[in-house]
């Protein structure tokens, strides 16, 4: 009787282990998907670089000017799961991503996996980058190759059990990693709003801060862009939908001007981590800021999901 119980327990555990192993397997892009990556243009890639905000995390903390192009890493992201230390993604062959192929790079952005098949932590916003177009990823990779190699690895992450088991991220990816749109725009949404949807939900990864998260750290789709606690400590990341507590009172022109200048309609200025983001977006063509503005006016209005008062 005891033996039978023991055998049953072992079988259940083994089945669970197999299921875990299967469910957490890395799921790289297949050959057909990879065939869409190829010819590239570093000049076009520079636009994607600023849009995706690579340097805001991957440059050394507080880097400005030319130093923003030295992607040495080292910034600490303090989260409820532990401290993530942003890696070196300069083209250095030893300490950066100088030995990566375009396929490696595409798998990191689209599927959240490193060249060795291990899962990347979603502090790297691949739950947004998964929506990026292959041509934009190809161009971005070409641009990154033109940047100066920087020697020196960033220190390791400081993550406690169980989140230090990277394999487990595979489960997170099953739950939260998709390339489907976050919101359904109305049928009659303008082409501009649709262009903005790509910029905001994909490379711009606005939802990573502006959308509240579940206890597992996934974005809550039904509270898309409705505001969230500030990951850097006190305060709130604002609701940027047209709903109550959001920016419904801003015109498209107001939004575009804010992204260009950092000034809100009442001439309060941008602050916190958004300063870097706004400065990045100010480097884009005006048509991109207009598209983002059109999208933000077209999304479902939601009351603020989080306030600090």
């Amino acid at each position, binding site marked *: 009787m005891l033996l039978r119980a023991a055998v049953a327990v072992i079988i259940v555990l083994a089945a669970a282990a197999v299921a875990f192993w299967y469910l957490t397997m890395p799921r790289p892009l297949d050959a057909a998907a990879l065939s869409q990556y190829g010819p590239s243009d570093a000049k076009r890639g520079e636009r994607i670089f600023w849009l995706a905000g690579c340097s805001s995390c991957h440059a050394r903390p507080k880097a400005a000017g030319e130093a923003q192009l030295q992607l040495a890493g080292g910034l600490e992201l303090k989260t409820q799961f532990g401290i993530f230390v942003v890696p070196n993604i300069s083209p250095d062959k030893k300490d950066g991503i100088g030995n990566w192929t375009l396929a490696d790079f595409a798998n990191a952005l689209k599927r959240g996996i490193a060249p060795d098949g291990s899962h990347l932590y979603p502090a790297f916003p691949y739950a947004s980058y998964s929506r990026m177009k292959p041509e934009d990823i190809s161009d971005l990779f070409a641009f990154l190759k033109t940047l100066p190699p920087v020697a020196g690895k960033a220190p390791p992450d400081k993550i406690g059990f169980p989140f230090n088991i990277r394999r487990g991220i595979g489960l997170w990816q099953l739950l939260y990693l998709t390339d489907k749109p976050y919101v359904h725009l109305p049928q009659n949404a303008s082409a501009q709003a649709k262009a903005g949807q790509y910029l905001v939900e994909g490379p711009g990864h606005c939802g990573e801060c502006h959308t509240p998260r579940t206890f597992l750290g996934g974005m809550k789709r039904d509270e898309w862009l409705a505001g969230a606690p500030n990951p850097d400590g006190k305060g709130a*990341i604002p609701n940027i939908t047209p709903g109550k507590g959001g920016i419904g009172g801003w015109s498209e022109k107001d939004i575009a001007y804010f992204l260009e200048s950092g000034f809100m309609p009442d001439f309060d200025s941008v602050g916190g981590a958004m300063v870097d983001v706004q400065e990045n977006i100010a480097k884009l063509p005006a048509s991109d800021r207009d598209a983002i503005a059109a999208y933000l006016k077209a999304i479902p209005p939601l009351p603020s999901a989080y306030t600090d008062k």
Partner: protein
Amino acid sequence: MKKFAAAFAVLALSVGIAHAADDPIAIRKDLMEANGAAAAVSAGLLKGEIPYNPVVAKEAIMALRAVSHAFGSFFPAGSDKGNTKASPKIWQDMAGFQATLAKFQKDTDAAAQASGKKGPADLAAFKAAITPVLGNCAACHRDYRLK
């Protein structure tokens, strides 16, 4: 510095009876609103929404300058608590905050110097004077204001 602070204490009293002098949070909010209004005027001129006028331009510069010199006096210990968006970093790193403020003062002083008695002669001169000043808003709010 003292002169500006005194001028603003008087101004604050005359403008807002409701703001007791011992309410630094209310006073610094008033000062920031003055800054915001001056930034709005500056942007209006820069964008051509307000026809260029040297007197108006100088007024914006002088308001920003006065605030830059007065502002730092309203962050006493303990005023991090209350209805404020001031970041706790101000009190954790007062030297850094003061250095950031000193940069703002330096830029407003330079703009005031450049605008002369009659204000910047034309839009190009105003743009050259005001652009470094306006950069201070985000530079300070990046670290020292919540949101």
